[in-house]
């Protein structure tokens, strides 16, 4: 998850980085589809002869690797002090903190 270090040093977003979440989902889908393409019936009469599951699977694995790689190369650093959002609790969506009054 997060690489906690001592003191107030910044730590990385880790699993909560949205790029890792996208990478994980695409990776899982890619592996399943590639396996289905390799070992399942690939129904050429539907796709016009292309093993669509396999190719999509491979493409998704590449996308997944790209997102996870990006997150590794440029991790998001969470500042030590995170202010609590002061938003209306009845609004379920994430909300921005209100800007200070001018």
């Amino acid at each position, binding site marked *: 998850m997060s690489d906690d270090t001592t003191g107030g040093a910044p730590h990385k977003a880790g699993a909560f980085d949205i790029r890792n979440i996208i990478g994980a989902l695409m990776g899982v889908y890619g592996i399943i589809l590639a396996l289905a393409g390799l070992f399942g019936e690939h129904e050429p009469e539907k796709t016009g002869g292309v093993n669509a599951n396999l190719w999509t699977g491979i493409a998704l694995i590449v996308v997944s690797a790209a997102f996870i790689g990006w997150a590794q190369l440029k991790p998001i650093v969470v500042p030590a002090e995170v202010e609590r959002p002061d938003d209306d609790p009845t609004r379920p969506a*994430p909300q921005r903190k209100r800007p200070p009054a001018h």
Partner: protein
Amino acid sequence: MSSDTLINASWLDYLLVAIYFGFVLGIGVMARRQVSDSIDFFLSGRSLPAWVTGLAFISANLGAVEIMGMSANGAQFGLPTVHYFWVGAVPAMLFLGVVMMPFYYGSKVRSVPEFMFKRFGTGAHLVNAISFAVAQLLIAGVNLALLAGIVHALLGWPIWVALVVAGAIVLSYITLGGLSAAIYNEVLQFFVIVASLLPLTLIGLHRVGGWSGLTDKITAAADSAPASAGVAPAAQQLESWPGQALSGFDSPLFSVIGIVFGLGFVLSFGYWTTNFVEVQRAMASDSISAARKTPIIGAFPKMFVPFIVIVPGMVSAVLVKEMIDLKNGGSPAGGASGDGVAYNDALLLLMRDVLPNGLLGLAIAGLLAAFMAGMAANISAFNTVFSYDLWQRYIRKNHSDDYYLRIGRLATVAATVIAIFTAQIAMGYDNVMNYLQTLFGFFNAPLFATFILGMFWKRMTPTAGWVGLVAGTLSAIAVDRLAAAGVIDLPGQGAAFLAASTAFVVDIVLSIVVSLVTKPKPASELKGLVYSETPREDRTDPHEAAMPWYQRTVPLAGIALVMVIILNFAF
């Protein structure tokens, strides 16, 4: 359960769907428990990079409207459907980013009615809050109808059972916290949809022999179609302009005017600039500059979405047996609604015919996700406006927070139940796009007129605010009823464009007339709400000048505009 379902899904497909929901609910649960300060940090939104809010921005809209409606439109009208993107969305998104966003961000409002209250006071607020709430219920019905259509197609359940089940799914999604990580889910959903629609498009094109095979088949189909079917000539289906079949005007000139003014200006500016379901995404960014860039960054992927939603619709119309029959004026049995195939089924039927098990599951996950998230967003928007803008302000003031939370929960359940009934209205339309554009004409077109006038004309009075809204909506309804009664004869979506344009003009004219005879608000109360009363430094981000050009709002918008003009010429 009937064994005769539209789509034959295998365990593999269900596994892929289950994984998606596992992810979404997992994120929701993590978000609720706030297991770490980093997720807190993300959900408060202040760290979200512009590409994330930009994708969430278009993803909030990439639901029922785009996927089913646009592929239905593609099957029925062909390439002119791209106007919904290149004329009907991108310019308005750029305008939102460049001109309107500073007012939203700067005035700190969190809903459209709130802006109306600040600018015009009670009358316009009340009218707008009621019409917004009604619109959300009707649009939630559209999403629910499409969601139920998929459940029906998958499992073969009777449509009313599917509706109730789909409603229950959405309710549990909201209560289990799926919405608390809405931006995460929307970005995920975007990738799942692209990952399923892109292969669908490519395989579909492969099956019909590439783009040239598709044009040949559409030409042959249009030439051989019986005259009674009213199929547009192939040239009109394969060129975006002048798009007579879409607008319903015979004259190419009126058609272009109808599309540019009705769709491009009134409907689309009205939709994109006043729709807080989307605008809220931009509010989640950390600065006025990032908020302005959100819709502009969203415009880039938006330009290319038509290739993966309209092209499959066009392929479906020449490849799928039932769709060919429908387009020739037949009425094939089956379809997601259970009583005959409709254009809305274009995409589902194509999926059935060309996707192998596995990819099929991915596609189903993407569609379910899009409709569910779309409906959940409508319902939560309704919830907010009902509990705070209506109930708290006009019915029960000064109660505890818990009280309004309880009201909000009741409103959520009530809205879901009502949506089951409004879904019946949506299902009465063969092409759901016709219905949606009609609704936008009723609600968004007058709202946009009032907004834009109120934002740039400080003389506009509070009375004019509500009179314009009421008259605009009523005139749009009048045009729609005249069209339904056959007095105005415009096939396609022309009637909706005309209704929207009428609402806009009536609203503007009445607002000006009423403003001239009533008393305006003092200029001191209009700071941050009216262009001329807002100092320039409140409208721009002082840090932006220091950024490289590709991170600045206006140059980015310029590039997007040039790209969309090139696309318009190319197709």
